[in-house]
């Protein structure tokens, strides 16, 4: 006959503690794995904009990044960006150059497409639309969240690649063509994958999509 043994008070406490610990560990594992957990996702439908025609919505893993474009500052560059957005050229393109807390760069349409990345050439690709002239004469404050077109060491070589600054970069003024500023959701860009030892990212994060608020 099996004799029933009643658990003592201290045994009950230890048992409760172990169960709690297991639950905490499991939940922590899933919470930590979700890098987007504390990133607010902005819904552009619920926001109002002064110039909705110039609002672009960049969707990344952690949510929407809402960008106001400035055609009055750089008409040609903004037009190029809008053209590529409308043709969905930026969808599934890598954030190939990321410097922690400083800058994210994407838009290599030739060598940065998901499933067709060329790590040897990424950052040098072109859109096929040709280069455009730099538009750097209008004063522009390159503060955190500024969006600019990337170029080679030479001016007038802007094409499809763009960057977004994650900190103030006053020296970029009159160096890089500005196209706009992030007005909501920059936190989502801070979660873009970066490497500790290189600006160029192996197995990078991708742009899910970029859309104009009003097509």
């Amino acid at each position, binding site marked *: 006959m099996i004799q029933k043994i009643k658990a003592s008070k201290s045994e009950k406490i230890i048992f409760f503690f172990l169960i709690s610990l297991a639950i905490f560990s499991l939940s922590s594992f899933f919470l930590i794995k979700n890098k987007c957990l504390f990133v607010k996702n902005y819904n552009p439908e619920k926001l109002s904009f002064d110039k909705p025609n110039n609002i672009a919505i960049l969707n990344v893993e952690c949510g929407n990044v809402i960008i106001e474009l400035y055609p009055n500052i750089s008409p040609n560059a903004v037009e190029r960006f809008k053209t590529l957005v409308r043709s969905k050229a930026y969808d599934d393109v890598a954030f190939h150059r990321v410097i922690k807390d400083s800058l994210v760069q994407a838009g290599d349409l030739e060598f940065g497409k998901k499933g067709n990345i060329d790590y040897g050439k990424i950052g040098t690709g072109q859109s096929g639309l040709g280069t455009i002239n730099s538009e750097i004469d209008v004063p522009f404050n390159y503060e955190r969240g500024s969006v600019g077109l990337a170029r080679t060491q030479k001016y007038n070589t802007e094409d499809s690649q763009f960057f977004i600054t994650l*900190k103030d970069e006053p020296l970029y003024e009159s160096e890089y063509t500005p196209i706009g500023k992030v007005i909501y959701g920059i936190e989502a860009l801070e979660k873009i994958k970066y490497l500790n030892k290189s600006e160029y990212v192996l197995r990078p994060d991708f742009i899910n999509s970029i859309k104009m608020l009003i097509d």
Partner: protein
Amino acid sequence: MKLFKFILLYLFLISSVQADTIYQLIKIPNLEIYNIKTTNSLRYLYAKQPFTIGADNNINCFRPSKQDLDQKYEIIEKNLKRYSQSFLKKINLKYIVLCEDLSISGINTAGIPDNVMKTLIVDIKFDNKYFERVLHHEVFHIINDSFKEIFNEKTWSSFNSDSFNYAKCSTCTKKIGLDTYSKTDGFITEYSKSTASEDMAEVFSHLMHGNLPKQIDPILQKKIDFIKSGLLKIDQSFNL
């Protein structure tokens, strides 16, 4: 020793890549912003640590003291603000790097101009006697490099007497005196006799500094007129 190597490796592995915006822009390491809010949009940077650059790592410069930097900045800014923003844009000059004991291949130099990178490196410890004038001398090299066709060296050399020949380079001659001649014979300083480019820079710097000799010989006058007309071709509003 093993522990030391391990610590070094650990530090290497945990250190993350740092954004060096200035390096990205002008390919000179160890710089910091001194002042970028200037009337003509020149951006003044200084060496926070020594730096070595150049194809053979042959250019070196060192960190200046705060006191020297503050003192010399006033002089440099006063001189360089005479160039308008539009002129600087045309000649491709945007960044002034301030450091001390600047040398190229072991030879001390007042400045190193680079119109491709839009940069002029200035040795703030260069001889005070010539310092202000030399700033304009170095600016002229930027102008010259950006407008070679205007400041044609053959045309310039034709102003000299037939028997005169410049040296093959500015460092392959002992003619390095910077004192202004009181009596000129086609040249304004001894250094003018080194190369056509240095000769032009010497004339330009004297024009800018306003210390031309009282008596100017016909050859030198031709050179002065050549420089003045060249500058007006670049910028009609250029004011000497």
